[in-house]
């Protein structure tokens, strides 16, 4: 079943055309990789899905409902179901790790303090950050911040998680942890879009591979099709984009 579908998305910033007819869908329970050179509009596309950016034309459909024309207030409940994990983690720097992760719980649930504490501890265990509960974001390394950011975006059990380069700039150990987290989330039946330059990482998580080029989806296929593609662009992409290029 299609849980999310993008139809003919167009988006420009002033004269600069970013998306010129993006089409794809996401099946329930699958995680797809969204690849593409820097600046092709991968982040803008994820942001458009949850209305952080306004698209100029096209449709975003979530569970058979159009969501691209909502006003800002109507997006709020939706954003608990489709969650965005930021490229730079975007933690609240005046709040502790615990407060950052608990923020969505305080806002959107009626849980009491004990229950919230329990939930936060559970998710901290999943992202391997239990020891950092009372630290401030400025005390954390980039990799730890990303894991906290992931924890914060999963705490409400969203149906879809949009990962914006979750492994960018991470060392192999942190990368492995993030991949495990994503697979854990996938194993629970949730769906995801994994924006990355890190092809090996994507291959460990994703069922399908999409390539964004010149404002359109240039390639859309399974891991098998991606591996065996003869298309020159797909080939260069696969061979030139390794994680060492993957610096934001």
């Amino acid at each position, binding site marked *: 079943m299609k849980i999310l579908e993008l139809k003919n998305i167009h988006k420009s910033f002033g004269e600069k055309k970013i998306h010129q007819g993006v089409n794809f869908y996401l099946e329930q329970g699958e995680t797809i990789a969204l690849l593409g050179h820097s600046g092709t509009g991968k982040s803008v596309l994820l942001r458009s899905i*949850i209305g952080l950016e306004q698209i100029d034309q096209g449709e975003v459909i979530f569970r058979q409902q159009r969501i691209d024309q909502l006003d*800002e207030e109507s997006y*709020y409940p939706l*954003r608990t179901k489709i969650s965005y994990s930021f490229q730079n983690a975007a933690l609240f720097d005046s709040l502790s790790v615990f407060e950052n992760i608990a923020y969505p719980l305080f806002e959107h649930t009626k849980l009491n303090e004990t229950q919230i504490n329990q939930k936060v501890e559970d998710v901290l265990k999943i992202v391997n950050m239990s020891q950092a509960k009372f630290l401030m974001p400025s005390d954390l390394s980039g990799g730890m911040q990303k894991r906290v950011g992931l924890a914060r975006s999963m705490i409400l059990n969203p149906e879809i998680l949009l990962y914006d380069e979750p492994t960018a700039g991470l060392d192999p150990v942190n990368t492995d942890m993030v991949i495990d987290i994503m697979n854990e989330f996938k194993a629970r039946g949730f769906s995801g879009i994994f924006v990355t330059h890190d092809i090996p990482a994507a291959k460990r998580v994703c069922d399908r591979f999409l390539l964004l080029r010149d404002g359109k989806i240039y390639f859309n296929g399974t891991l098998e099709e991606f591996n065996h593609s003869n298309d020159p662009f797909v080939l260069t992409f696969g061979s030139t984009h390794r994680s060492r290029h993957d610096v934001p």
Partner: protein
Amino acid sequence: MKDLKAGLILTGDILDFTKDVFTRLFSKPFYWGRLFDQIIQLGLGSLSISIVIGFITGLVMTLQFGYGLAKFGGTLYVPAIVSVSLLRELAPIFTSLLIAGRVGSGISAEIGAMNVTGQIDAIRALGTSPVRVLVIPRVLATVLTLPLLATLASFTGIIGGMLISYIEFGMPAGFYANKVLSTIVFADIFGSIFKCAFFGLVISILACYRGFHTKEGTRGVGNATTWVVVRSSIIILISDFFLSKIILVGFYQ
């Protein structure tokens, strides 16, 4: 011509933003805890400096008027002149300019830094409204505390005047107090509160608006604070003239 157009567009944007703030003010959720935090931070944080400013102004004014009027045998009028000018103009204006510098720059720097680091987007992405979470508590806190601070500054200024009147001109404190109380009317206090509430709105709205529109990283944050302090100070001074006129016509005749 181009500047005029840009200025009009900006004004329109700021008014739209103000409308956004007011429409969300009366719908849930409302963050009492955050409002309380801001009142403590903005209000208590500016308390001592407001007291000092009011007190010093009172001292200086009394000194100047005392010697100035002594030549014409008008020392008796010092309590009335000092208290009325403090209450109606000096304390509101000085306190508001001070708050524009202290609180206005603080708000725009904080929100601006959150904006350039993606934290405003994070608030939205987590299904909450930056206007409710950040703006409304700051605007309300400024609008509520600035009039109180200005009133306090007037009061300490009048006390300062009492001190100087006694020390320099040998005027008994009781006489001074009597003169002050028989001069001040309710409209003086109300006018001060009204003006300061308006100035508080101007400062906090400009600061929040500019914070949300901060670009270009750290330098942008610096530009934003300067912008807010300069603009809100100018607006305070200009609108003071018109507000004073309105209050004079409306409440003293």
